[in-house]
């Protein structure tokens, strides 16, 4: 065979694909929408095809394969869609909703379906039809004076990056760690974060268009003012502020989103604070907090654990082939060999040379007082770990973090847990100790990062496992449930969750909260056709 791939590799690939293809929504009742028989489903598919065209409805085993792919555990097939429909306009979205209401067809909206660590495109329960909005991919407005943008769901960060470059616009993006292939709208609606001064994405959002379940088009904020021109300039509008109820939500389908972009600074200087001991994370957090509160550190700071970093560029077997979790001294040895510490904190300064010269010694002295090394391009330039965060803190394009998914090997597998806490040193110490205890008990390596906002921190834990091994997947599932439960008992709840744990996390936010969400849902979507189960809302 002349291919660069061996016959065994090609056969293995073919076998894997054939195995997945055997699952078809029409062959297995559990993948059909709940309480819908096969004939009705077939009729629904015909009606959807009449709206978007035959080629944009997917309801057989081969064409739905991309929509089934996720990296989280799903041993019982609880997140298998019945199919997908891909409209290309708001009018088509309205027409699809009319069909869905008529037949009680549950629709799971996605923008690009790259919700890494949280289930990708897969729905909260099997049988939902994916409403794939990727074909709506236009940058509708870019105001170069205000630095505002209005985008459709399918617009990726890469697309905006290219637009800015093509037109030499003086703005930067703020990206999540997998920016090139994900949607600005999708990440913002999930309340994702990035690492420039515009890192709190929902805070930088301004105005949205939402299609409600009955087809009503709502423009939030200033969007409905006749002859108005302030939609992307003023967030709050008049009366109750509604944008928030359409984030992490199933109350409507967002079809346009306004965002603010950061003016490109003349000078950008990234820093890395290298801390050598696991317990140093508390002092680092207490050092960062006042500088984030007074904005002298303007960007979203990441405190990266060494193992999180090394998992991007290595497989587990590169570090350890012994029994059990990787011992601390082994992690320390590999960290030293890569010129990184056990925790590595990344912040940056933006402005003019004079501004940065004034701020740099103040910050350096504060971090050095914790016993850490404060490093810059001069010492770390070319180091892949430094370069990775240097790229992120200027909103650059990278997918390096995808590497952690194959930590255990080719099959991949990673599910995220992200509890939030006040940005206080004692909290990081407590959370790190608890997560390490639980994960090590189940045989998983604790590979963390903390993202520090103004007064809070997101503890980002990627539970990496071998999805090709059912026993390992089962342990990952049980480990995640224990983490959510025991963190919850300490008052630490997740800000976001995978589709497999949405109800569990929602319970921690209390009955009143759930009841209010249920009432809003009932009022806006009485047939519960939009993403039932999303964030625990039926």
């Amino acid at each position: 065979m002349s291919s660069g791939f061996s016959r065994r590799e090609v056969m293995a690939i073919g076998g894997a694909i054939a195995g997945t293809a055997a699952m078809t929504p029409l062959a297995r009742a559990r993948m059909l929408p709940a309480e819908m028989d096969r004939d009705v489903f077939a009729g629904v598919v015909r009606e959807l095809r009449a709206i978007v065209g035959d080629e944009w409805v997917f309801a057989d085993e081969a064409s739905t394969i991309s929509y089934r792919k996720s990296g989280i555990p799903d041993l019982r097939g609880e997140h298998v869609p019945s199919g997908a429909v891909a409209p290309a306009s708001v009018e088509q979205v309205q027409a699809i909703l009319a069909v869905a209401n008529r037949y009680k067809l549950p629709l799971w909206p996605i923008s690009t379906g790259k919700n890494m660590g949280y289930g990708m495109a897969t729905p909260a329960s099997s049988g939902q039809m994916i409403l794939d909005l990727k074909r709506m991919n236009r940058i509708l407005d870019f105001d170069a004076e205000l630095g505002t943008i209005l985008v459709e769901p399918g617009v990726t960060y890469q697309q905006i990056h290219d637009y800015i470059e093509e037109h030499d616009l003086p703005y930067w993006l703020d990206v999540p760690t997998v920016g090139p292939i994900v949607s600005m709208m999708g990440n913002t609606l999930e309340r994702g974060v990035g690492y420039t001064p515009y890192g709190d994405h929902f805070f930088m959002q301004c105005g949205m268009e939402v299609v409600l379940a009955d087809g009503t088009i709502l423009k939030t904020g200033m969007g409905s003012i006749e002859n108005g021109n302030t939609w992307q300039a003023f967030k709050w509008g008049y009366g109750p502020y509604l944008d928030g109820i359409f984030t992490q939500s199933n109350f409507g389908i967002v079809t346009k989103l306004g965002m603010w972009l950061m003016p490109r600074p003349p000078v950008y200087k990234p820093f890395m604070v290298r801390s050598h001991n696991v317990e140093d994370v508390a002092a680092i957090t207490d050092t960062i907090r006042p500088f984030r509160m007074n904005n002298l550190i303007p960007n979203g700071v990441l405190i990266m654990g060494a193992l999180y970093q090394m998992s991007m560029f290595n497989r587990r077997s590169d570090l350890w082939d012994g029994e059990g979790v990787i011992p601390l001294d082994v992690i320390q040895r590999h960290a030293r060999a890569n010129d990184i510490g056990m925790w590595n904190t990344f912040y940056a300064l933006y402005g003019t040379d004079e501004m940065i010269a004034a701020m740099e010694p103040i910050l350096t002295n504060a971090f050095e007082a914790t016993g850490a090394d404060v490093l810059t391009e001069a010492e770390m330039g070319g180091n892949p770990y430094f370069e990775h965060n240097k790229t992120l803190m200027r909103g650059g394009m990278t997918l390096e973090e995808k590497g952690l998914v194959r930590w255990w090997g080719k099959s991949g597998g990673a599910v995220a847990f992200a509890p939030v806490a006040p940005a206080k040193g004692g909290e990081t110490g407590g959370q790190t100790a608890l997560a390490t205890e639980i994960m090590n008990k189940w045989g998983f390596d604790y590979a963390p990062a903390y993202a520090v906002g103004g007064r809070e921190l997101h503890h980002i834990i990627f539970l990496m496992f071998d999805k090709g091994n059912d026993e390992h997947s089962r342990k990952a599932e049980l480990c995640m449930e224990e983490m959510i439960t025991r963190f919850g008992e300490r008052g630490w709840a997740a800000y976001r969750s995978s589709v497999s744990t949405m109800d569990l996390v929602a319970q921690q936010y209390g009955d009143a909260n759930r009841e209010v969400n249920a009432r809003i849902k009932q009022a806006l979507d009485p047939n519960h056709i939009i993403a039932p189960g999303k964030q625990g809302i039926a």
Partner: protein
Amino acid sequence: MDRHRVLRWTGALGVAAVAAVALGSGLSAPVAAQATYEIEPRAPEYLYERTCGYCHGHNVAPIIRGRKLPAAVTSALVRSGNGAMPAFKPTEITDQELEALAQWLATAEADPEEHGR
């Protein structure tokens, strides 16, 4: 320091230089019921650089250029997202674009600048 950049950042350069590309606010024109890449398919090199190459050339995934990977295998892997790789849907890379990408990759030369994993 680039004085021009400072002036632009502070607004001292004026907005005329950048305002020319503004599309204008309050857009009301109807939007075509077709993705832009359905009207104008993206070239294989363009797609590779903006999608595949971020992992397969940057320390994350195996090198795939210069390996004579059969086009049918590429197409299947892109759609299924074999193993740790994400799956890419027909709405992200159309069937037409994928066919051209897979054909191009089957004969693409290795790039010595890439670092596989």
